[in-house]
């Protein structure tokens, strides 16, 4: 897939309490040409996203930090480990999706354990993807579409991306933390379509090795439409 030379670089926030996994995900993301910030906990992730100061009922020992961080640091995707002490990846996902300023940021969950109920819970809560560890470079191919989709949403552009070079504005529903100072490539639209198609075939391929433990069952009632995976879940 050809990138326009001036294509904006996506910024991914990676959350994992394991130093090894942080090192790995950072390398994988950088190899995929993303800008990366890593943190070792959910609360640090929220702090980075500028959320911790708003409502802090999580940890009484955490100082209340109100920052304007969210205005300056745009995050296009959060990828988080599921199993973390204190705030789990699921808790972090919930906090992000419950926040009016952050809910449009796509969230991906990683886990070393293939637990169907866990996977479905995360997807139902709004996670875009669920990756089994160790995460591979090919898994990250799925991320770009999610990030581009959210960028469009935040610029209040219609789905057909009519004016990709319109200067960025902050609107009532847009998420300030997802804005960047870089402009969108005019090639976004065809790329998006291309990616969606690639997504489908990748999803079909990855179904075999990532989802093998999940049996067919009734589809859960999902609030968010998902095209990347036709995962159906066993109810526990």
């Amino acid at each position, binding site marked *: 897939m050809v990138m326009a030379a001036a294509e904006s670089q996506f910024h991914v926030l990676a959350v994992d309490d*394991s*130093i*090894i*996994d942080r*090192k*790995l995900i950072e*390398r*994988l993301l950088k*190899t995929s040409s993303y800008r990366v910030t890593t943190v070792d906990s959910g609360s640090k992730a929220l702090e980075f996203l500028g959320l911790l100061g708003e409502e802090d009922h999580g940890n009484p020992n955490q100082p209340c930090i109100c920052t304007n961080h969210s205005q300056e640091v745009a995050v296009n995707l959060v990828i988080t480990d599921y*199993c973390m002490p204190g705030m789990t990846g699921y808790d972090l996902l919930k906090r992000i999706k419950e926040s009016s300023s952050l809910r449009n940021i796509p969230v991906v969950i990683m886990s*070393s354990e293939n637990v169907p109920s866990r996977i479905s819970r995360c997807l139902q809560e709004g996670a875009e993807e669920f990756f089994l*560890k*160790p995460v*591979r*470079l090919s898994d990250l191919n799925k991320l770009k579409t999610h990030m581009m989709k959210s960028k469009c949403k935040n610029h209040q552009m219609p789905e057909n991306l009519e004016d990709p070079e319109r200067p960025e504005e902050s609107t009532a529903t847009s998420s300030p933390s997802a804005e960047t100072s870089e402009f969108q490539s005019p090639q976004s639209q065809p790329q998006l379509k291309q990616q969606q198609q690639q997504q489908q075939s990748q999803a079909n391929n990855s179904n075999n090795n990532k989802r093998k433990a999940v049996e067919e069952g009734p589809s859960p009632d999902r609030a968010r439409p998902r095209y990347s995976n036709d995962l159906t879940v066993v109810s526990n």
Partner: protein
Amino acid sequence: MPTYLTSDSELWFNLQGYLDEQFIQLEELQDDANPNFVEEVVRVFYNDSARLIRNIEMAMGKNPMDFGKLDDVMHQFKGSCSGIGAKKVKRECTRFQDYCKEEDPEGCMGAFQAVKQEHATLKGKLDAYFQLTRQC
């Protein structure tokens, strides 16, 4: 980028059984901009796993054993092993976790010895491997 673990190399023959596909993935992430990536990851692994082993040792010393806590720490350790492709060590970690689930203290102690043994053996092999690849 050079991959030293080709199927016909002596190195591969030596390391086979100890490492899985994940190690090859790490090698593929190494490039001119990050020429020592694999060695760095392995170094971080051994530093971090030394800490986890100490935690397990402390928890094993408690009477009665806190099998839940032991399982948790071993889960972390196993995750790290998974990250570098340490196949054999991982296998012993799983055995340990099985004994935790059965709440079998002797089983745990034996399995923990095996974990430490494989962990040390792998270190020796990796040290030799990196020394060799540095010479290339």
